[in-house]
């Protein structure tokens, strides 16, 4: 008997002996680690890019934001969302320049041609241990001049024996901005940044040329000149912007503006690395509190504490109620509070939810299907957890997301679009007919608030209560929002010349088209609900379901008619929502983000004004004027702002929804001891039905056996 069989027998034996009390049978995580300081979480889709220059989705940010550190971050607890320095010493200083590059005094508002953002970073910050920084005894880089043969025994990054580190310098930040501008890296924000950063296009062309000459080589971007970027000293850099763009500071808190050491790029560009999937896309190099220890996107991603982390303390101030909620219990403690985070791939909703209930994941959202199991409404309509959840001591946090799900009309369409009064009336009638309150209650279990304008709560410019009501769709009755009667909508239809949905001119029933990329489970229910809504006005809604690419193409060409789309705020500023309706941003003419191709000169003028003023009464006034125009024209059915409900177990601490910050893992704390007890308690296997089942199976063989012997005797006779 060799070692392995022995081990296996031992394993079986242990399993049998300990079945009743200790390790639960259904634990999906590797055993023995429950009491350790680990967070268990999941990801639903394997990340496409872990390169901060390209990544632009929340499922990638859940890893990236823990690893890479841009100069700024959002305060974890404070609301409204506040920017605070992360690697920077303080918030960037801004100075305005005229066309000649001379400073403009702060009291002048005209004549500003450029603005400069000056960022100073803290000294003494070091990168995570990484082979790209490894030095040999002579101080030369160990792994930057590799040949293909040197990689013979390398399969994953950890196969490189030596690692090293280096101090973070301003040059690294500038290097990353140059990467954003490099055409071969396909940064999704290159299109936005070229409008603002001085010298962006010139650099882009330069870099593009280099790439065309030698597509496979590494291009040292340090050698190329970027007119709008300056490294003033080891720890200070400057970004020069065309005109004014106050929103730039928000971008500086996103992973796009994280530092990138040139050594890493050089390291990964060596021959043979790509074939092993060892690339910047899969093995990030950062200064953050965590580093990627295990990288298996097919199964599991594990993050471990970065030993070189520069240190940060848990915030000691927050909102008034935070202290009562225990969110300040760890104030002043050294971050990160956990040592490790295990993210398992979990594509399906059901298994995830069940594992959460079994205690194998620390937190969970609430899907529409598990809603009734988890949440109930109290007698006053207030939200509570069900008894089953409370039994398990599960906690609930809710927040309105800074996003909007809307239904847009293509304004280029001859029927529903355009500036004619007829189309406007039709759009308004539809706005009333499509009952989003019902939608929220059926499809989102009431988790959402009907939108009155594009601005969600929490964004400057959003108005609560009666003053914020969209007067074309809602009435304010007894302190509550009430959708206008459907008869009023029918009347609007008649005014527009569509009595009962029949076009007065042709006598034909009005047929509208809804374009959608969705065809997953539940899509059918959604479609039939939509058809019912339009049916109320006598309109026949035809649903044109297609794949995502075709949908995009339709949007680009403006051949769609009605569609549903959503927008998630990049940063907490009204500009990030209103620009979805800004004329020069239209999808068809300018391939911008204005998918309805809405264009209203007055609105556009106000937008340009609003963009550059700071939050205050003046800005509020402009925003309200803009909102009124939008409500009148109704290019969108404003839809709703989803509410996020998150559940978490009692051992998971310091949970406060922060929709802007992604680097929140460092604040989390886990009570591993409690978790271990609970898991064992909740997961006692019930094996007696299996024993009964096998008993029944065995008994059912009895007649067969009897028959067998009888027959045998029969043959013998």
């Amino acid at each position, binding site marked *: 008997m060799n070692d392995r069989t022995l081990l296996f027998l031992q394993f079986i034996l242990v399993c049998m002996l300990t079945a009743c009390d200790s390790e639960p049978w259904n634990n999906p995580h*590797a055993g023995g680690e429950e009491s350790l300081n680990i967070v268990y979480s999941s990801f639903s889709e394997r990340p496409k890019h872990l390169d901060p220059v390209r990544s632009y*989705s929340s499922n990638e940010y859940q890893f990236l934001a823990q690893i890479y550190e841009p100069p700024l971050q959002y305060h974890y607890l404070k609301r409204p969302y506040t920017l605070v320095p992360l690697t920077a010493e303080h918030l960037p200083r801004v100075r305005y320049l005229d066309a000649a590059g001379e400073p403009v005094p702060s009291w002048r508002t005209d004549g500003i041609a450029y603005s400069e953002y000056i960022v100073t970073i803290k000294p003494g910050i070091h990168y995570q241990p990484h082979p790209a920084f490894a030095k040999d005894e002579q101080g030369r880089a160990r792994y930057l001049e590799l040949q293909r043969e040197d990689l013979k025994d390398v399969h994953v990054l950890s196969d490189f024996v030596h690692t090293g580190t280096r101090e973070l310098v301003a040059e690294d930040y500038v290097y990353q901005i140059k990467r954003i501008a490099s055409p071969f890296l396909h940064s*999704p924000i290159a299109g936005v940044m070229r409008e603002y950063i001085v010298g962006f296009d010139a650099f882009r062309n330069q870099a593009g040329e280099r790439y065309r000459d030698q597509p496979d080589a590494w291009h040292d971007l340090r050698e190329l000149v970027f007119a709008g970027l300056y490294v003033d000293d080891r720890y200070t850099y400057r970004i020069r912007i065309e005109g004014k763009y106050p929103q730039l500071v928000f971008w500086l808190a996103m992973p796009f503006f994280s530092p990138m050491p040139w050594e890493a790029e050089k390291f990964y560009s060596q021959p043979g690395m790509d074939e092993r999937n060892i690339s910047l896309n899969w093995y990030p190099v950062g200064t953050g509190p965590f580093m990627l220890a295990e990288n298996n996107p097919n199964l599991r991603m594990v993050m471990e504490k970065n030993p070189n982390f520069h240190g940060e303390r848990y915030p000691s101030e927050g909102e008034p109620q935070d202290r009562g909620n225990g969110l300040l219990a760890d104030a002043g403690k050294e971050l990160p509070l956990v040592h490790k985070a295990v993210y398992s791939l979990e*594509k399906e909703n059901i298994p995830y939810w*069940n594992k959460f209930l079994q205690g194998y994941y620390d937190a969970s959202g609430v899907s529409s299907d598990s809603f009734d199991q988890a949440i109930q409404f109290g007698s006053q309509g207030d939200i509570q957890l069900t008894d089953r959840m409370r039994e398990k001591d599960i906690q609930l946090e809710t927040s309105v997301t800074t996003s909007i799900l809307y239904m847009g009309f293509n304004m280029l369409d001859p029927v529903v679009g355009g500036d004619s009064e007829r189309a406007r009336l039709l759009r308004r009638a539809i706005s009333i007919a499509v009952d989003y309150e019902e939608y929220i209650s059926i499809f989102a279990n009431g988790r959402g608030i009907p939108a009155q304008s594009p601005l969600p709560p929490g964004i400057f410019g959003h108005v609560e209560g009666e003053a914020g009501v969209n007067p074309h769709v809602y009435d304010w009755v007894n302190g509550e929002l009430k959708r206008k009667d459907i008869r009023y909508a029918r009347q609007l239809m008649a005014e527009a010349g569509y009595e009962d949905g029949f076009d007065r001119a042709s006598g034909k029933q009005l047929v509208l088209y809804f374009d959608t990329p969705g065809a997953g489970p539940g899509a059918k229910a959604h479609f039939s609900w939509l058809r019912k809504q339009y049916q109320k006005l006598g309109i026949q809604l035809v649903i044109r379901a297609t794949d*995502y*690419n075709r949908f995009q193409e339709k949007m680009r060409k403006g051949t769609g008619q009605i569609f549903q789309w959503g927008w998630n705020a990049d940063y907490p500023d009204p500009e990030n929502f209103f620009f979805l309706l800004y004329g020069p941003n239209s999808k068809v003419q300018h391939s911008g983000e204005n998918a309805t191709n809405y264009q209203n000169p007055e609105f556009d003028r106000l937008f340009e004004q609003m963009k550059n003023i700071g939050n205050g009464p003046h800005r509020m006034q402009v925003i309200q004027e803009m909102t009124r125009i939008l409500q009148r024209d109704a290019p969108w059915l404003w839809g709703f702002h989803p509410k996020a409900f998150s559940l978490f177990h009692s051992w998971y601490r310091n949970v406060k929804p922060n929709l802007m910050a992604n680097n929140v893992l460092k604040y989390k704390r886990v009570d591993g001891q409690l978790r271990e007890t609970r898991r064992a308690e909740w997961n006692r296997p019930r094996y007696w039905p299996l024993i009964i089942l096998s008993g029944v199976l065995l008994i059912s063989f009895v007649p067969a056996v009897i028959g067998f012997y009888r027959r045998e005797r029969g043959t013998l006779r």
Partner: protein
Amino acid sequence: MIAYIIRRVLYAIPILVGVNVITFLLFFVVNTPDDMARMFLGQKHVTQEQVEDWKTERGYHYPLFYNMQEEGADTIRKTIFYNKSLRLFIFDFGRSDSGRDIGFDITQRMWPSLAIAVPQLLIGLLVAITFALLIAFFRATYIDYWAVVICVALMSISSLFYIIGGQYVMGKILRVVPISGFETGLFGIKFLILPVLIGIVGGIGSSTRWYRTIFLEEMNRDYVRTARAKGIAEQVVLFRHVLRNALIPILTGVVVILPLLFMGSLITESFFGIPGLGSYTIDAINRQDFAIVRSMVFLGAFLYIVGLLLTDISYTVVDPRVRLR
């Protein structure tokens, strides 16, 4: 024999070319390279320039079959077909549209697929043969009749039911096994139990019924009758003669699917979160990563042909009367 194998291998080449052309046509009619680019560049802020760059980087900017701007061999070589399809013949799968090396991924994801498929096949075979033998023993009795009806009933249940029901009962109610997941090593065995069990239960109806017919056919042969006439006990006839002879068609039937075990099961793997080739394929279809789908089609076709070849060879091994020409 060797000449035969060589001939078969040569014959496989035009088939693989055909497969290649068909899939190539299908996929490039479905999705123009522009579509792919947009898919992968994400949905926010994408310009046409970025699309062109992406295509150039991935080699999708060439014409499909014939490059008129080039001369000589380059007219053929600088085309999408040459770069994306013909390379498959040397098992150079290239990179997926999301930038990972496909060959590397395949070698990694093959093992989980096998970890499910092999036990499923072996245990399933064992169980089905046992049942079929039992039923054959009781042929033409009520046991036989009802066993066949039960088999048909088992066959008639959708595989989705087995999976959904199995997860619900075993994982959620009884809490005996993890609901889903995967792990390597000894610790991982408990993840395999449920999918393997479900695979066996799902397939048992049809295979038992099929093996039963084979057994019955065998039992009607002359030599069995002779053996019985000689007074040999029924179970001896059954085990020594019938089983041994009936195993030949059963095993040769198994040989043809052996190579395809690598491909994994699409549905099971994606339900149980097993990082095998089946869920790899499903993901690729859902994300429209056609580089992966093309590679999997090619791999599937290749393995199928290997399976055919193995079957032919196994026939000669078990039955010397069959001669390969």
